[in-house]
């Protein structure tokens, strides 16, 4: 019964999305206000219905209703409750339903809360949002029905992939999806503004909170995904340039560029056409990412769907939306008036540099990810991997960091090169000093990229806080703090990456219980190894006492065997100190009874994810700082103030 209710709700939501599109298109084309006044209620009803469908799916997983094919294939009655719950979206159909649910909810939110935008642009935006949703509803209903029944019902399910049975992974995909969908809203805003020919600062201010929120969620999602790969895959790597990782990185790069250009548009009314273009690109990258992951075109550690029919369906959606948006852009770009002017030395120009570099990095990741597929089509299989990406995206990213220091220290519209140079003197001196110290202390041990990474991190760390100098800290707006913290986070993260790649110590050794080993100043004593049973797994768990100086701890690395489906995973044990992490993995048992141990000491590796979180925090502070006033006004005025709301622009 719940499954049928869910399916019915999904169909009705799809029908309402069609109606929403129709109202919006007809209303705008014929200028009929009565049609347009129907758009908002329909959008809200659609959001409620699709949410209901999603809750039905969660309920089915919660109750382990094995008569539903999706539950039987992806769940098991003995699973811990968290994974029953998260299992609802840990599969293809469920994750696509989550996608449209978030999209429907976002559409309802735009219908309910957006007041700053002109009414016609607002309605066009909701129409565009309905058009996107409609494609995904069709995808779900025609090729990935999550509510299909299984007759006869099996006795129990097949279980969730053990690698996904991890608290991090339970919430990692939803975070990324919220980010992707946020970009879809930005895309709809851009389409709406193109349709009504209103690409201006007002539109940018309406779009900015969505871009910011999407960007924050993508940042958190990528940071969490990276940490997951780090502790779950058991080899100490934190980024593999895996196509699925790239699929999440590309929208983030585009969103980062968009975030900066939308600020230029909102503050200075410049970069109009480019901002619209970036909004189209950002959502296109979300779609490309979804296509890459969902189509199974790249079989990779993260991909759980392999089905060419679905692939072609998403490819068709991709072509329709991106092609349509680009066609609209081409038709309307001539009517987008050139925005405000700026000089070669100005904050706008440095933000153009930021956008250029981010776009080129995006191009590098895109072509590097797709190139093996293209050559394979011509019968030549090649691999594009870390050596390529590191070598080309690394220097570009470091150049971007330098622009990041200069940007906030340069005035809007026009500045003098000499004056900007004077403000940059301290970061430059700090970089020179760091370079000299590293050159002497770690001569020959550092790769070029690590060396420049550490040096530039020092300069960026100093440069990013300079905007706070000589300011009344109490009266400094929150969004300035947001920017400072996010930029500082970049420095912290880069320092962590460079430190990890430059100073990690690796030790691979076979040990018997009672053995002792030294590595990187740590003493590790293998106390014992014993079996252990969990909810749905059995494991061999080692007790390893570790000590360095006065510090002591016991680590418990495990080698876990899951029964449904049968899989073995290594559960690394990680000891976090202020200056790094000790990472211990229990491997296989050898014929002579000893155990393989893998031990890494990774100085300051935690900075990578700390920096990621700082970047996200900076985004949150900026969001609050920029939007607080609007929110407070909206709260105070309540529904009485319904209308155009231009006064908050």
């Amino acid at each position, binding site marked *: 019964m719940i499954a049928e209710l869910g399916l019915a709700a999904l169909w009705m939501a799809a029908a309402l999305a069609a109606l929403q599109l129709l109202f919006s298109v007809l209303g705008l084309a014929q200028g009929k206000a009565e049609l347009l006044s129907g758009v908002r209620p329909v959008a809200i009803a659609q959001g409620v219905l699709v949410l209901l469908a999603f809750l039905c799916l969660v309920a089915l997983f919660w109750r382990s209703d094995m008569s539903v094919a999706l539950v039987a294939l992806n769940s098991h009655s003995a699973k811990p409750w968290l994974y029953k719950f998260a299992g609802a979206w840990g599969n293809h159909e469920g994750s696509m339903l989550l996608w449209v649910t978030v999209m429907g909810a976002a559409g309802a939110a735009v219908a309910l809360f957006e007041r700053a935008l002109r009414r016609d642009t607002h309605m066009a935006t909701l129409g565009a949002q309905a058009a996107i949703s409609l494609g995904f509803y069709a995808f779900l209903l025609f090729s990935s029905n999550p509510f299909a029944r299984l007759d006869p019902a099996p006795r129990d399910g097949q279980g969730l992939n053990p690698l996904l049975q991890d608290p991090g992974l339970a919430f990692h995909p939803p975070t990324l999806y919220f980010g992707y969908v946020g970009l879809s809203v930005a895309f709809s805003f851009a389409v709406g503004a193109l349709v009504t020919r209103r690409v201006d600062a007002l539109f940018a201010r309406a779009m900015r909170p969505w871009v910011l929120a999407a960007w924050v969620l993508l940042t958190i999602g990528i940071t969490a995904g990276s940490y997951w790969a780090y502790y779950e895959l058991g080899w100490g790597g934190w980024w593999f340039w895996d196509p699925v990782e790239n699929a999440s990185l590309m929208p983030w790069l585009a969103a980062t560029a968009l975030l900066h250009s939308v600020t230029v548009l909102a503050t200075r009314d410049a970069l109009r056409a480019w901002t619209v273009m970036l909004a189209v690109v950002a959502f296109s990258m979300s779609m490309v990412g979804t296509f890459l992951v969902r189509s199974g075109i790249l079989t990779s550690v993260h991909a759980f769907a392999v089905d060419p029919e679905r692939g072609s369906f998403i490819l068709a959606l991709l072509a329709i939306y991106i092609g349509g948006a680009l066609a609209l852009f081409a038709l309307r770009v001539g009517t987008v008036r050139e*925005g405000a002017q700026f000089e*070669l030395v100005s904050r706008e120009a440095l933000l153009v540099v930021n956008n250029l570099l981010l776009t*080129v990095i995006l191009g590098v990741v895109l072509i590097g990810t797709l190139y093996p597929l293209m050559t394979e089509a011509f019968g030549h299989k090649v691999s*594009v991997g870390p050596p390529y990406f590191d070598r080309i995206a690394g220097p570009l990213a470091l150049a971007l960091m330098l622009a990041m220091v200069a940007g906030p220290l340069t005035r809007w519209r026009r500045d003098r090169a000499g004056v900007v140079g004077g403000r940059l003197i301290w970061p430059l001196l700090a970089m020179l000093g760091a370079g000299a110290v590293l050159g002497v202390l770690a001569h020959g041990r550092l790769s070029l990229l690590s060396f420049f990474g550490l040096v530039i991190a020092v300069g960026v760390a100093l440069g990013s806080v300079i905007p706070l100098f000589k300011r009344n800290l109490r009266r400094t707006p929150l969004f300035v703090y947001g920017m400072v913290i996010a930029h500082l986070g970049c420095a912290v993260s880069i320092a962590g990456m460079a430190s990890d790649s430059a100073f990690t110590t690796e030790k691979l050794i076979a040990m018997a219980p009672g053995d002792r080993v030294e590595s990187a100043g740590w003493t590790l004593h293998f106390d014992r190894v014993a079996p252990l049973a969990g909810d749905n797994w059995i494991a061999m768990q080692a007790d390893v006492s570790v000590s360095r100086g006065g510090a002591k701890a016991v680590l418990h690395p495990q080698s876990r065997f899951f029964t449904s489906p*049968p899989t073995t995973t290594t559960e690394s044990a990680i000891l976090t100190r202020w200056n790094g992490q000790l990472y211990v993995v229990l491997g296989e048992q050898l014929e002579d009874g000893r155990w393989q141990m893998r031990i890494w000491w990774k100085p300051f590796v935690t900075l990578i994810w700390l920096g990621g979180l700082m970047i996200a925090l900076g985004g949150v502070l900026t969001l609050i700082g920029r939007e607080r006033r609007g929110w407070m006004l909206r709260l105070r005025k309540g529904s009485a103030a319904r209308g155009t709301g231009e006064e908050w622009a």
Partner: protein
Amino acid sequence: MRALLLLLAALLAQPALAQSALAQSALPPAPYAYRQLDDPAQEKQAHDLMVTIRCLTCQSQSIADSDASMAGDLRSEIRERIARGEKPEHIRRWLIERYGDWISYEPTSDPILWPLWGVPLLMLIGGAALAATRIRRRGRRNGRRGRNGKEGAGQ
């Protein structure tokens, strides 16, 4: 233990275990799969090579970070050859001859890979040129407008 063949996990887990039992009894062992070379300089050479060799039975992992048996065998082979004094690039050529270009992440000078470098370079130059001309054009127009004392939007 074997791990992380996520997609193929259900299918492979059993055969892989059986295979490893077989490997232990019949096939030559891979002594350096999980053991480093004693000479740190040689180990660094081996490691730098291993991170650029794809694990063919995994997805998007190098042999330096995989538990697959194939990765272990290749790690051992590479370490042994380095210990015998072979040059890393020589070992890479041997691997490519044996397994094809697919195994190496290191980009080659094959013309088929030129777009990988060319496209970003063109984007960078083209984008910079476009931005610079637009900003300069604006600057000139600003200057003119300034002299004429007119204000307002461009275009």
